């Protein structure tokens, strides 16, 4: 337990102190890593915990992004825009999740994929609201939205970085608590054996539904934080290729531990950024990494590291 607290504090410190040492691009990259980590954690709430592979988290990511963007453009202060954006995404997840959680395995995945692409299609065509394929641009950063002296302007990139990073870290803490809570344990029980879980009194479908909506909430939060970062939101946020990112990140980092998706997100984006400087063929490298992970490191980098540590301890 203490290890976890230290690890958490270390991560928080690195993230928050980064602007002191890093240039604008590194800061930007790290923020993107944080957002992807949050998205991956939301994905893994379903996958790592219940074994359900959602190929459509993009729907909620985009939902949060567009909702926040529209609110910011209407002048709503930052904090409220972000939170309301996340809630909007959760609402969407509540509606779509009602259908998704009735299925398992392949059917669940296919349905999440279909819904994700439906959101994409709606966003693409509903030009009046979403700006269509041009997207929403000119999203202002504005003020924080807390009363009185706390109402900072978030226009500077450093301030926005800190704001977003703090929100992400808080979310990670919440998700971490969630995984150890009765809900989290119930989810794990479902993954092990859904029938047995049902018999022992866990209402399987309802539990999965709650997890689904929670995942949608945090995916939406990640998307909402994206809007003021780029000051542009486009339909690609809902496309299945975006939904595939948290999947890959989680798999690389390892779906069976809390840290896995976080490590995976860092490695995924970091690797991509490095590879792209040397070759255009980063998909190839990625595909190979993914292949290696699936074939050998089934539990991802974190899992492999954990195994290694365990082995060293035994020796």
């Amino acid at each position, binding site marked *: 337990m203490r290890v976890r607290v230290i690890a958490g504090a270390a991560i928080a410190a690195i993230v928050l102190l980064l602007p002191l040492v890093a240039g*604008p691009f590194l800061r930007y990259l790290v923020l993107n890593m944080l957002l992807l980590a949050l998205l991956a954690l939301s994905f893994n709430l379903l996958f790592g915990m219940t074994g359900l592979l959602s190929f459509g988290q993009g729907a909620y990511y985009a939902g949060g992004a567009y909702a926040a963007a529209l609110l910011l453009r209407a002048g709503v202060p930052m904090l409220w825009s972000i939170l309301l954006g996340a809630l909007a995404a959760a609402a969407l997840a509540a509606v779509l999740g009602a259908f998704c959680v009735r299925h398992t395995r392949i059917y669940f995945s296919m349905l999440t994929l279909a819904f994700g692409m439906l959101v994409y299609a709606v966003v693409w065509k509903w*030009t009046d609201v979403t700006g269509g394929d*041009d*997207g929403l*641009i000119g999203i202002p950063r504005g003020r924080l939205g807390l009363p009185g002296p706390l109402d900072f302007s978030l226009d500077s*990139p450093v301030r926005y970085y800190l704001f977003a990073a703090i929100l992400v870290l808080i979310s990670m803490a919440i998700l971490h608590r969630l995984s150890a809570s009765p809900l989290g344990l119930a989810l794990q029980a479902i993954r092990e054996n859904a029938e047995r879980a049902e018999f022992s009194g866990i209402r399987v479908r309802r539990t999965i539904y709650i997890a689904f909506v929670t995942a949608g909430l945090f995916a939406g939060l990640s998307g909402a934080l994206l809007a003021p970062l780029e000051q542009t939101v*486009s339909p690609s946020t809902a496309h299945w290729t975006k939904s595939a990112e948290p999947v890959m990140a989680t798999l690389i980092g390892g779906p069976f531990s809390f840290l896995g998706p976080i490590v995976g997100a860092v490695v995924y984006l970091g690797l991509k950024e490095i590879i*792209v400087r040397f070759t*255009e063929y980063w998909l190839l490298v990625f595909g190979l990494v993914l292949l290696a992970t699936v074939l050998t490191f089934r539990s991802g980098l974190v899992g492999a590291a954990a195994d290694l540590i365990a082995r060293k301890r035994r020796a």
Partner: protein
Amino acid sequence: MAPRRGTTRRRFLQTTALAAAGLAAPKAFSAAAPDLKLKKPIKIGCQTILSGPLGGYGEFMRKGATLAMEQINAAGGIGGSPVEMNFRDEELKVDVGVKNARYFVDDWGADFLIGIDSSAVALAVGEIMPTLNKVLIVTHGATEKYNEDLVYKRHVRQCFRVCVPVYQDGIASALVAKDLPVKRWATISPDYEYGHTSWKMFRAYLKRFKPDVEFVGESFAKFGTVDFSSHISKVMGLNPEGIFSTEWGGEAVTMVKQAKLFKVFENTKAFMIGMGSAMDVLQGLGADYPDGTWASGRYYFGYPDTPENKKFVADFRKRFDTYPSYPSETAYTAVYALKKAVEKAKSIETEKVIEALEGMELDRPAGKCVIRKEDHQAVYAVPWGQIKHDPKFPMPILTNLKVFSTDEYYRKPPFAPVEG
């Protein structure tokens, strides 16, 4: 016709190939570069679509920019400083485009940015230019929102554009169409903002010139369409006399091939393709490009018939073993425009370069051009022409060129909204 493989994203420094090719800068752009004691090297970041069905554009753009860079460096650089370029794939995605722009400026240290094919990416990157505060010269993205909204209305002064925008596809086309014996028009165009806007402009302007014209049908194909059959049969079922299209790249090639199978060309009096004179489309279709098809672009290698243009084409062919496409010329011009502006301003400071670029006159391969002060849009004439197969050339060419005065089709401030 296969593109040269092995071109990577490595920084392009002065190459010995240049010495071997013996290229010299064109007269209009050169003048021995005095050493202005500027930063060395001067870095230009270029992003363009380098992959997928529209990847031909990026390849040609990269070549054009590279040629300019090599010529400039051979002549001593910009104000005595060598030019270094870095190319990235924009993937036609907004988030990738923005990330590339940030990478170029914040990480790689770019002094200037050029490129961009997708209108959406141009708008999104334009949005962050005030933050990055470097000059951006767009070389292909054609939405009118870029110059009319971003620069003119919202004063994002870092943004410039050296390629003719949608006016060429939507308005100049109407100028051609009004003289054609076609009363019933239909369209097969891409299903995004650009496709809709260009069709809307075409309809609005053509109706003004020829009030008895009818628009009988439209079919918009989603991005990634590989089979236009249903679109073609839908549109042909409405008996149009003319087809208008702003499909581009590989999608234009597929559409024309399939339209040919459906005997569309034999059953209509005119077929207009806004970006149909791009070299990759000409090469891609080859003998399959029906004679008489109307096509245009952002530059055509055969116009104007000036020594500067001839030299550009000859230099390009010698260096890359292919005729230049229009993104090649626009990228080439962008680099040279930066050279001229920096040397005029004697500085690479963004504000000074902006001032130098505003109102600047350029003698580019495409002809004489002025960069308007109000909206930072380069104004120059590009022809519409008809496809013809000429044994002297390895690909189909344009003939019967129609060139209009830019006054007739470039929209002017204060940019009234387009009706229709």
